[in-house]
């Protein structure tokens, strides 16, 4: 009996000393009204392909306000590219990441609306995916850095306003596939996305990157809507390019490694 009383006393003490458990944050199940509200949003369905000639033009006419060190780096890259030795920024199949995906992509994307979220899915890069939370949550206090960062958004009329932080410092701020500088950390990206006309999507970006830019840089990127079925997004696994189709000695279908040159092309015959 004495033992039982002692045990009860220990249990009470242990319980009293236990720190209060943090209440887990739970994403609520969407309601019928949440689904119905999606119908009130602008129609961004279809496939959006980028205006690459405008990307080309802005690489000449809208240079980011690089700090001195970054400016010298980019000047060297541009000279190398002009000389036929383009610097290989994106040849390792890692994601182009934010903000370069929006800035210099040559590939199409689609945009999905679900309750509390906008999702952007891109083609030809197996990991090209942005989740933009529109459920009112804030950024985490100390987000784990990721290629596409932590994005929260809200609607201002028919424009989606997006705020992104937590991008890996290695992610380039690129003006082309051959010129750009890693953001080096503390980057903050603001976007305003809206239909400029019935089938043209504008993405206004403001990039704040104190490690490489002397002041915030603003640019607008343009996407065209396609509804023809042949534009439907197809699977695009970047690593596929390392291989060609073949067979092993037993006749099993396998992938055979293919060598590539520094610039990203397969090694040509001598």
């Amino acid at each position, binding site marked *: 009996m004495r033992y039982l009383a002692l045990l009860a006393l220990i249990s009470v003490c242990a319980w009293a000393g236990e720190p209060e458990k943090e209440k887990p944050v739970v994403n609520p199940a969407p309601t019928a009204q949440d689904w119905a509200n999606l119908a009130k949003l602008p129609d961004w369905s279809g496939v959006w*392909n980028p*205006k*690459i*000639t405008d990307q080309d033009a802005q690489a000449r006419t809208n240079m980011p306000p690089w700090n001195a060190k970054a400016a010298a780096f980019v000047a060297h890259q541009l000279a190398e*590219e*002009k000389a*036929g*030795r*383009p*610097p*290989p*920024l*994106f*040849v*390792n199949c890692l994601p*182009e990441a934010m903000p370069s995906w929006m800035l*210099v*992509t*040559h*590939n*199409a994307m689609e945009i999905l609306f679900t309750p509390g979220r906008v999702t952007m899915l891109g*083609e*030809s*890069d197996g990991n090209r995916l942005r989740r933009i939370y529109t459920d009112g949550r804030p950024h985490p206090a100390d987000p784990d850095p990721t290629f596409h960062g932590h994005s929260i958004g809200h609607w201002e009329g028919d424009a989606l306003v997006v705020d992104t932080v937590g991008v890996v410092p290695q992610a380039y701020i690129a003006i*082309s*596939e*051959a010129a750009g500088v890693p953001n080096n950390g503390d980057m903050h990206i603001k976007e305003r996305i809206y239909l400029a006309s019935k*089938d*043209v999507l504008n993405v206004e970006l403001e990039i704040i990157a104190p490690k490489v830019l002397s002041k915030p840089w603003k640019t607008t990127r343009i996407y*065209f*809507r*396609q*509804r*023809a079925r*042949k*534009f439907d*997004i*197809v*699977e*695009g*696994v*970047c690593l*596929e*390019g390392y*291989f*060609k*189709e073949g067979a092993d000695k037993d006749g099993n279908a396998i992938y055979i*490694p*293919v*060598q*590539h040159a*520094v*610039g*990203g*092309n*397969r*090694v*040509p*015959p*001598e």
Partner: protein
Amino acid sequence: MNRTVAGISVVLGLSMGIYPASAHHSTTMFDHSKVVSITGTVKEVHWTNPHVAIFVYGTVAGGGEATMWLMEMTSPGNLIRSGGWTRTAVRPGDKVTVDFSPLRDGKKGGALKKITLVDTGKSYTADIRAQERANLEEEPPAKPEQ
């Protein structure tokens, strides 16, 4: 590319500091101010992301010895849309004429501009900047947007 050529490429690659890499890159290693034409036979088609490639054994217009050439282009998705390609549009064994911009370093590679099947006359292009209008499959608008 036969097994021997592949083997040589790998050995050369390792000795020249070449490493496996792919993905999104500039194309100024090709001299876009030049267009060279070859006629020959398709040996391999790599219908893969992020860049499709075709190996053609052929002769440059104007003469010379037949040799293997590597043609690089954009992704399968972009070829389907901007150039009218399908996965089987060009197959090993097809007789073709290829117009391309050659590598600046003199190696047997190029950026494909147009490939024409000799037997049918059907041709395909590879210009990703040729899809810069909304609703491309519909009639062009009277007044182009943007």
